[in-house]
């Protein structure tokens, strides 16, 4: 059985590139942990506190970045067929929308209603 159907000869990343990405990923993870340590220990003011107040956002951004690197390079989305990108991206989109909506519904649910006043 020949499994290799018609090969599409797009450029793939090389070994060197993969090493680069590995380093980046590692650094980003280290950054996450460091960030965690710094903001965890942070006093009420100063740089640590600043970080702490944006901890969640920064962390989400960092992991999104890592996510992007793995998907684009290790999973070859950058080089592969567009369809694959659409398949993955649209699933992610729906997933993120659902997570966020549920999060909002659960977190603010009561506030939204009670905030309209008079319920006392």
């Amino acid at each position, binding site marked *: 059985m020949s499994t290799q159907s018609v090969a599409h000869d797009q450029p793939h990343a090389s070994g060197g590139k993969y090493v680069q990405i590995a380093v980046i990923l590692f650094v980003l993870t280290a950054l996450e942990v460091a960030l965690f340590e710094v903001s965890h220990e942070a006093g009420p003011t100063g740089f640590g506190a600043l970080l702490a107040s944006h901890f969640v956002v920064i962390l989400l951004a960092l992991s999104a970045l890592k996510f992007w690197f793995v998907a684009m390079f290790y999973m070859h989305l950058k080089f592969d067929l567009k369809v694959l990108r659409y398949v993955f991206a649209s699933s992610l989109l729906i997933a993120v929308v659902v997570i966020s909506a549920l999060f909002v519904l659960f977190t603010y649910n*009561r506030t939204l*209603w009670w905030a*309209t*006043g*008079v*319920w006392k």
Partner: protein
Amino acid sequence: MRYLHVPRPWYRPVGLLGALAAVLVAGCSGPYPQSTLEPRGDFAAMVDSVFMTTVYLAAVVFVLVEGALLFVLFKFRGKPSDADPKQIHGSTVVEIIWTIIPAVVLAVVAVPTVRTIFATAAVPATSPDGQPPLKVEVVGHQWFWEFRYPDLGITTANELHVPIHRTVDLRMKSADVIHAFWVPQFAGKRDVFPNRETRLWFTAAVTGEFPGACAEFCGTEHARMDFYLMVDSAAAFTAWVDRRHADSTMMYTGAPKHAADSVPLASMDPKVARGKQLFTTKTCVVCHSLSAMNPFKDQIGPNLSGIGTRKMIGAGWLPNTDENLREWIEHTQKVKPDVLMKGLPPISDDEAAALIAYLRTMR
């Protein structure tokens, strides 16, 4: 003063829905005490008005679209031998038109929808009668309703008394699974949850007795988890409240006025006295309180204050006759399988009669 709703005739929407409907309705005569189409309070009236808007619009859409379909069927009937018709693949202009028209129709529906959502969301600060809203805590149980009036200090079950023109501020929860509180003529449904409080409100515009039901599937006897809403005149409501206060047993208040308990056992009608004893020996007292001012919350069974004169027993299901009450007490699981009133010692006809005599003194 806020607008109070005047009931509209029940047949109004029917005319819209065509001949079939008329035929059906003719075959099914009223009255319709649980109808959503006869609002008797402000909340239901607001809901009804936005609903009627959609009914009218839907009727128009229905007639136009189904009409077009029928027209096509009769107009373009073909024979097998016919030559192929003109091959048309579409038209962008038409496509845009029939995207926009529904969008406009929906916008017309959307505005009153959102407005009504917000208008019904929060309880008004004052009632039309000038008083603050009447707070009632509703507790759904498998399979009956408990109503507590925190400001009046009383508890009752399966019969919700409210004064006319006083906004009722319902705070609801469940003792077990999810139920839904529904008195169609006054308000839409609201689910009651075991772990969170939900709210609903309405103001009654007429007095009378109105059936309500549990609308969320809640287990074996979901079908028979009904209740009655009793809208009293202001005076009647005050009298009812006084009665509840007075009718509490000695145990709790020390100063009962009306109940049999105020009479020493010896001077009581012997049948009633026997019933009073049986109420304890037959374990009724474990699950039921006869006092509206019962300090013990979360009892297993419904509060029986005033059971002697309630309209229904078995959660709005059986008329409160001696016969039904006897059946209920002797064969609960046959009358309403699976209810939590089980494991009682056997009760003879005699004993049941005594119990009933005693319960009848709870007015």
